[in-house]
């Protein structure tokens, strides 16, 4: 590989695009037409895995991000242990829903993008800057979205200037919208949002917000066929990350398992 001496700016994504190597824009030319009513998978595209429910909730120290572990391919479960919440740098994470292939690639590219900027500039991007850049990358995926490969991320970060957690959701055109309390996306997103709407209040503690996240994912798994609930037989639980002033932290699996068991026991009593 030669060295690229010309100035390509500080964006790795733009550098890839300028080299015509952008993996996200090399859409497979499936012989379908985009439907006017929204992206639909054309029959000529074979079934491929979809990520299901992911969510983010703000709490007193920052923001929580969580997701179930299931990938769905039509009416089949294609993966039970996939990871949908990705650390993108010390103070941000991206959760993905939709076509798993391009979505995971988008998250990986975004990780490199943030690190690349940090190394070139010797400075980290602001929280807002990261959210905007991700929006541009989602927009870059538009041609693929029209062919049914919709990859929509959810972005959560800790804003070191404002000293608070922030949540951004996106639409397929790269539109970027900030959420002030919580948000969930994916096939079970609506069910998760309904749960969070009931339980959310300001100034939640870490324990409280973890409980709400697990409750929302549990309800989504109950009502949405695509979303996977806690799997006590195999020991598979949702993944949860906290992002606060001191950085991003994965919640221990044992802690999530214990919280899931408590939740299930309480439901059993209620039933």
């Amino acid at each position: 590989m030669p060295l690229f001496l010309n100035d390509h700016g500080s964006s790795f994504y733009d550098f890839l695009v300028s080299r015509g190597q952008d993996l996200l824009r090399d859409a497979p030319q499936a012989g379908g037409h985009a439907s006017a009513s929204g992206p639909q998978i054309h029959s000529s595209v074979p079934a491929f895995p979809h990520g299901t429910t992911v969510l983010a909730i703000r709490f007193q120290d920052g923001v929580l991000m969580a997701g179930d572990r299931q990938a769905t391919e039509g009416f089949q479960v294609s993966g039970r242990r996939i990871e949908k919440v990705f650390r993108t740098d010390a103070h941000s994470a991206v959760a993905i829903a939709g076509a798993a292939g391009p979505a995971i690639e988008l998250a990986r590219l975004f990780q490199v993008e943030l690190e690349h900027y940090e190394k070139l500039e010797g400075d980290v991007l602001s929280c807002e800057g990261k959210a905007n850049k991700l929006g541009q990358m989602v927009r870059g995926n538009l041609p693929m979205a029209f062919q049914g490969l919709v990859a929509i991320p959810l972005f959560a970060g800790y804003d070191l200037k404002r000293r608070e957690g922030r949540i951004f959701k996106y639409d397929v055109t790269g539109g970027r919208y900030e959420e002030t309390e919580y948000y969930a996306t994916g096939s079970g997103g609506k069910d998760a949002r309904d749960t969070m709407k009931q339980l959310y209040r300001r100034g939640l503690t870490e324990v409280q917000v973890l409980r709400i996240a697990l409750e929302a994912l549990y309800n989504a798994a109950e009502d949405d066929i695509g979303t996977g609930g806690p799997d006590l037989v195999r020991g598979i639980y949702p993944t949860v990350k906290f992002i606060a002033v001191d950085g991003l932290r994965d919640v221990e699996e044992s802690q999530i398992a214990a919280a899931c068991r408590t939740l299930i026991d309480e439901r059993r009593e209620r039933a």
Partner: protein
Amino acid sequence: MALPYYVSPEQMMADKAEYAKKGIAKGRSIVAMECADGVLLVADNPSASLHKISEMYDRIAFAGAGKYNEFEMLRKAGIRHADLKGYTYSREDVAAKSLANAYSQTIGSIFSADPKPLEVELLVVEVGQAEKPNELYRISFDGSIIDERGVAVIGGKSEALMTFLKSRWTSASISLREALRLSVDALDTVTNQKLGPEVLEVAVLDRTRPGRTFRRIAPGELRVLLNSP
């Protein structure tokens, strides 16, 4: 049509080399040293924001001496090279050897083809993992590449520094603090002044850190490391 003056290739190369050496000799020096914690990099740099030492990748660091705009351009190109490789293949496939080679090729071809050679000297260092030893590469203005052991030095006073350090650096098992003091002693001696934490740029590739091992040592921490008994 006027013919250009004939200059023999030997003369042209010698002139270019002299020009580049002169440019580099004006610059301040940088020391890279193996120690128990990893690889330490110490630069004599009065600027707190214009860096000479930089992170390249998970286990790789870069240092440049000479003309700032030239080594800064090379630094950015190196990061692009490393990130592209890591993204295309895998993070573990990014190696200092291939980066040093790319630098050597580029600097070498500029030296022979362009009218003005680059007035830079570079260090590309990689901290080893488990059994793998550290790697220290020094790349000169003409693209020649030297694989150093233990200590590597670039910049204006590099010969005097190397003479000082050769006899004093004993083994890669010295602690970070010992390595730091030795490097600062060496820089103090060749510059004939006492360099304080505010004019030193220090970073370490920390063997024990997972993922990105590069860490800058801020003036506050540096003061503690240099002054405590």
